[in-house]
């Protein structure tokens, strides 16, 4: 409790409040605009945080992340265009409600559900992260190796594409992460006499290239047609029946989303899909789903917000990113000289608790921002795409260049943009590549340290209880994945892939 009070004393400082507000505002705009995800938004604004202290930087960047989850629902409900991939499921019933003249109620339920789920997620983060970090202090290199392998296997298992596709992308990411000077022996690896490559390939150019530029290249401006409806303020309140119908889906979505958020993978996307499936199963009127069911908006919207908060638990407590967004946030901490992981809670309590407390405040700000100002945010969508994407390209270039003042990084971003375009054409998911790139140095270092510790004996991974437990889970997940591969069984992941494909077409 004392720690949380310390956090609030940091988070309620006017400077921190201002940057939390700025993050929430930018996040909402990023969420509203299709084609610009939170990852691009965070990466682009990363250099702008260099002049700030660590708390303000992380508070602002995290605000963009969870703000985008709020904003993503606006376009889903009003235009049937998901501003964010995690809002795909909201399109179905949210847009159907809008067609029935209940757009305002749908927006209100989405915002209130997001707020409740976000706040629930932060309470759980407050309770879980510190003890988990204390537990993680027992981790040595073998445990970290097993944990990172588990992260990759979990990502592959949860992925909506096939196991080999995810693993091949993760391998490619880890391989890219080996470029540069080998920390243990000083060898230059694949740097081709380019001095900048000696430090390796950065996360920001790769993430911005694959997700930001890649998205722009595969979206011809002629196809981006906008038809915008702006609901009036007085139409925003749901009626009593709608409130009643949304209560349990919000509660279930919050719990489900938080639990899924703890796991590696695109948790905020998966959680909204699963929540939709759960609500349909629980509903007394499943036939209403697709025709404007309130639960079809309340559940998924709550789940994706709880998941985005849940993703901060492994990030803050273990220093383990569960996806590309938390990976870039980790990079932001490292740029500011703060090592993420178990020591963060004890050695930088002001940053950790200030960040946690700012999320309570940020969620309130988002509720206040998203409802009364929905009409203004919707106007952002009136900017023609042919004007918008050149602007995004400009911010991509500045964002990447300003991190290291390196033009090589910008070239890497451009190359990654082209690769991202190609990957979209061939149905390959770029997220495992980015995650692989992030964990690569830690994975390699912990694996090699483990082997040195054991004098080359692989049995070290089976002699330590935590490592064994993690590897047993890995084996179980691999077995499940191989079984479904062999049987070619259609499960929730294939249905998720179909839903995503259906949306993009």
């Amino acid at each position, binding site marked *: 409790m004392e720690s949380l009070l310390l956090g609030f004393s940091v988070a309620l400082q006017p400077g921190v409040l201002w940057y939390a507000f700025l993050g929430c505002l930018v996040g909402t705009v990023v969420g509203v605009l299709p084609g610009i995800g939170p990852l691009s938004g965070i990466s682009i604004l990363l*250099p*702008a945080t*260099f*002049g700030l202290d660590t708390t303000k930087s992380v508070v602002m960047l995290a605000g963009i992340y969870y703000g985008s989850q709020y904003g993503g629902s606006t376009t889903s409900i009003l235009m049937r265009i998901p501003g964010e991939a995690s809002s795909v499921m909201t399109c179905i019933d949210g847009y159907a409600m809008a067609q029935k003249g209940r757009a305002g109620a749908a927006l209100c339920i989405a915002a209130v559900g997001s707020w409740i789920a976000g706040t629930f997620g932060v309470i759980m983060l407050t309770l879980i992260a510190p003890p988990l970090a204390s537990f993680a202090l027992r981790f040595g290199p073998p445990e970290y190796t097993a944990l990172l392998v588990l992260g990759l296997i979990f990502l592959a298992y949860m992925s909506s594409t*096939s196991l*080999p*596709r995810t*693993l*091949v992308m993760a*391998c*490619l990411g*880890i*391989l890219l992460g*080996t470029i540069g000077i*080998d920390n*243990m*022996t000083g*060898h230059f*690896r*694949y740097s081709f006499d380019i001095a900048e490559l000696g430090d390796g390939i950065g996360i920001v150019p790769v993430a911005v290239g694959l997700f930001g*530029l890649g998205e*722009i*290249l*595969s*979206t*011809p*401006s002629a196809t981006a047609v906008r038809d915008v409806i702006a609901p009036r303020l007085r139409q925003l309140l749901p009626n009593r029946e709608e409130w009643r119908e949304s209560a349990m889906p919000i509660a279930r979505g919050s719990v489900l989303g938080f639990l899924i958020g703890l796991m590696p993978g695109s948790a905020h996307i998966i959680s909204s899909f699963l929540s939709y499936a759960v609500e349909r199963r629980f509903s007394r009127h499943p036939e209403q789903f697709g025709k404007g069911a309130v639960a079809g908006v309340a559940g998924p919207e709550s789940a994706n917000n709880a998941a985005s908060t849940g993703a901060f638990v492994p990030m803050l407590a273990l220093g383990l990113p569960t996806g590309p967004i938390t990976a870039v946030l980790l990079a932001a901490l490292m740029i500011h000289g703060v090592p993420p992981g178990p020591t963060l809670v004890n050695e930088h309590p002001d940053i950790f608790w200030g960040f946690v407390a700012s999320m309570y405040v940020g969620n309130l700000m988002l509720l206040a921002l998203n409802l009364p100002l929905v009409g203004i945010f919707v106007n952002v969508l009136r900017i023609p795409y*042919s*004007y918008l*994407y*050149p*602007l995004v*390209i*400009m*911010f991509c*270039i*500045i964002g990447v*260049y*300003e991190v290291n*003042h390196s*033009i090589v990084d*910008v*070239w890497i971003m*451009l190359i990654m*943009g*082209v690769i991202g375009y190609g990957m979209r*054409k*061939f*149905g*390959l998911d770029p997220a495992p590549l980015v995650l692989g790139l992030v964990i690569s140095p830690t994975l*390699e270092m912990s*694996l*090699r340290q483990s*082997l*040195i510790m054991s*004098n*080359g*004996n*692989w049995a070290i991974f089976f002699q330590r209880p935590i490592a064994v437990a993690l590897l047993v889970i890995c084996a179980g997940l691999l077995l499940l994945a191989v079984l479904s591969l062999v049987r*070619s069984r259609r499960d929730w992941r294939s249905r998720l892939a179909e839903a995503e494909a259906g949306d993009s077409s």
Partner: protein
Amino acid sequence: MTLRTDHVAGGVLAAFGLLVLALSGDLPVGSLSFPGAGMMPKLLASLLIAFGLMLVLRAGDSAPLADISWQDLPHALRVTTITALAVALYQTGGFLLTMTLLLFVLIFGVERRGLVPAAAFSLGVVALTYLLFAVALKTPLEQGVFGF
């Protein structure tokens, strides 16, 4: 046999793995008790080849290559070329000049929007961004050889 997307994707990735192995000749693998700088890259390149081949073998589940729509390719090529030119010019021309040109060429040249709106938008946005970064956020932007 129908050529499918995973035939191409798996083949390219496996070939990339082979290329990495070929480029890793001088990196020492070391021993298990003291792994060298080449151990991890060679292991990963081998896995890349294995998974790439697995994709090729299981390509029947993927879409036929002919189904991929390349209608957006000319637009993507134009945008990539112009962005590449801007990147090449960035350190010489500086932020103000290069970004104004980038926006203008993309909006007027690629998107065929009006000359005046394109010019006004390019100049206005670049000036606002400059003020935001350089003045409000105190993040200096690239000046180029002309000093602005």
